[in-house]
């Protein structure tokens, strides 16, 4: 960046240095108090000096709304970026990212996050702590699973997951009530019924916890050590509608096909409280289609109501 930039253009709001071969952006950025949009795509950024030191303390940290660093050489999300607290839109598409830092949750104002075209293998659950996120692009990566916590992204309108390594989705994805666009093509989604037979039997603590919850055994914080009170608050409801049970850590993982909008069948991972809950599927090895269709009726009506559009391969 040319020296004296902030002296010539102190009121600069939008700076576009895309396609200029920049390898670093220096301290000149720090004295631009009005800058809200910085476009630096298709450069040679990614090395140590890419972003100036002290970015977190500069006025820029609060004023910058849009940052586009796509088409560069970043191997990790630059920590300096995570200090841009006012950031609404971040693009790091087409870089060399292998992961997403959990500190991404620092960007509490983020609405638009584009990370397509990298080498990302996993998604940290902390990504779900972005309450304003509306548009999340993770296409063209190497992602093998989606953490169920992503269902907490209540503002999410569009989720792009195409061309990854997903075999199933967490059933919690149905909770994304505002989701209008979901792309899943180019994933090796399982097409046959799959039953995961690994099941760790519940511990005594878990069995006791389940009993307390399902029998509504009354308890007060004074009755139990704090750790157990906390443990009891973590009970998850068994999603099997015919079972009113709960589970804590021990559950059966199973893939169930759910119809979206009556036209697509998606494999969703269900966590059921016991193998008994999965008995509706036990004879499914040959007639998986009919069994899972009838069982997914109640799921389907919920899904059809909530999922307005699915863009599938």
């Amino acid at each position, binding site marked *: 960046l040319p020296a004296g930039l902030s002296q010539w253009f102190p009121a600069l709001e939008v700076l576009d240095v895309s396609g200029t071969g920049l390898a670093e952006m220096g301290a000149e950025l720090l004295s631009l108090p009005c800058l809200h949009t910085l476009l630096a795509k298709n450069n040679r950024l990614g090395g140590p000096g890419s972003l100036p030191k002290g970015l977190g303390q500069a006025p820029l940290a609060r004023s910058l709304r849009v940052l586009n660093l796509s088409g560069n050489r970043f191997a990790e999300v630059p920590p300096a970026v995570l200090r841009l607290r006012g950031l609404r839109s971040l693009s790091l598409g087409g870089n060399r990212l292998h992961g997403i830092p959990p500190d991404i949750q620092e960007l509490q104002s983020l609405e638009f996050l584009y990370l397509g075209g990298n080498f990302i293998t996993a998604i940290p659950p902390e990504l779900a702590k972005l309450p304003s996120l509306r548009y999340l692009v993770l296409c063209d990566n190497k992602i093998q699973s989606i953490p169920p916590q992503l269902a907490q992204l209540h503002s999410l309108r569009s989720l792009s997951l195409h061309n990854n390594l997903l075999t199933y989705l967490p059933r919690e994805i149905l909770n994304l009530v505002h989701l*209008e666009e979901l792309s899943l093509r180019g994933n090796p989604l399982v097409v046959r019924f799959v039953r995961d037979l690994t099941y760790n039997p519940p511990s005594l603590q878990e069995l006791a916890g389940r009993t307390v919850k399902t029998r509504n055994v009354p308890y007060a914080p004074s009755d139990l050590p704090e750790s157990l009170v906390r443990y009891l608050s973590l009970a998850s409801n068994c999603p099997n509608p015919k079972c009113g049970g709960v589970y804590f850590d021990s559950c059966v993982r199973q893939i169930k096909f759910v119809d979206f909008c009556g036209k697509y069948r998606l494999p969703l991972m269900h966590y059921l409280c016991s193998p008994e809950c999965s008995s509706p599927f036990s004879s499914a090895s040959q007639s998986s289609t009919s069994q899972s269709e009838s069982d997914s009726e109640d799921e389907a009506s919920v899904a059809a109501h909530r999922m307005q559009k699915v863009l*599938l391969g």
Partner: protein
Amino acid sequence: MEQPVQTETWKARSLEELVRILHQIFAEDKVSVDEVQALMESYESNPEEWLQYAKFDQYRYTRNLVDNGNGKFNLMILCWGEGHGSSIHDHTDSHCFMKILQGNLKETLFEWPEKKGNGEMTKKSERVLRENQCAYINDSIGLHRVENISHTEPAVSLHLYSPPFDTCNTFDQRTGHKHKVTMTFYSQYGERTVCVSTRRDAPH
């Protein structure tokens, strides 16, 4: 469309001229696919001429009507953000011309699924269309998916459909099942048109 006796070689020097020549061509009883394709390709994209129609949406590609061809054809501009793509779709017995005005679009051709089919659809071919290239498709050629595979550049394309249509079928690549959808315009003649329905199923 059939081959007329003489095929003109047109050169459209501006978008306005392109539209004018299209009206001329489509006023005839017989229209040649090759003629239209060559005409579309001859227009050298000039953003100043179409910027007013190029309205992008953050979440998905948009369809922006440019000219309604006196009912004979629809000419529209599609705007594709980074990573935006369409579903696999047919063209409701119409002719479809697609010219790239900016950026690149990947077109993947698919075979029609079997009547009883319940398996993965068959990919026929794929290609990346460059600026100013013009592709053509109709239902007898097959189905296609169009996508902007760039993570850094938006893309803009110019589409001509004859006759015009506002519904088509989208296909699930993994099963071949189809589903009828209605298409809407994001803008018409440069003005944003807001739809009442929230269903935005459309490919193009």
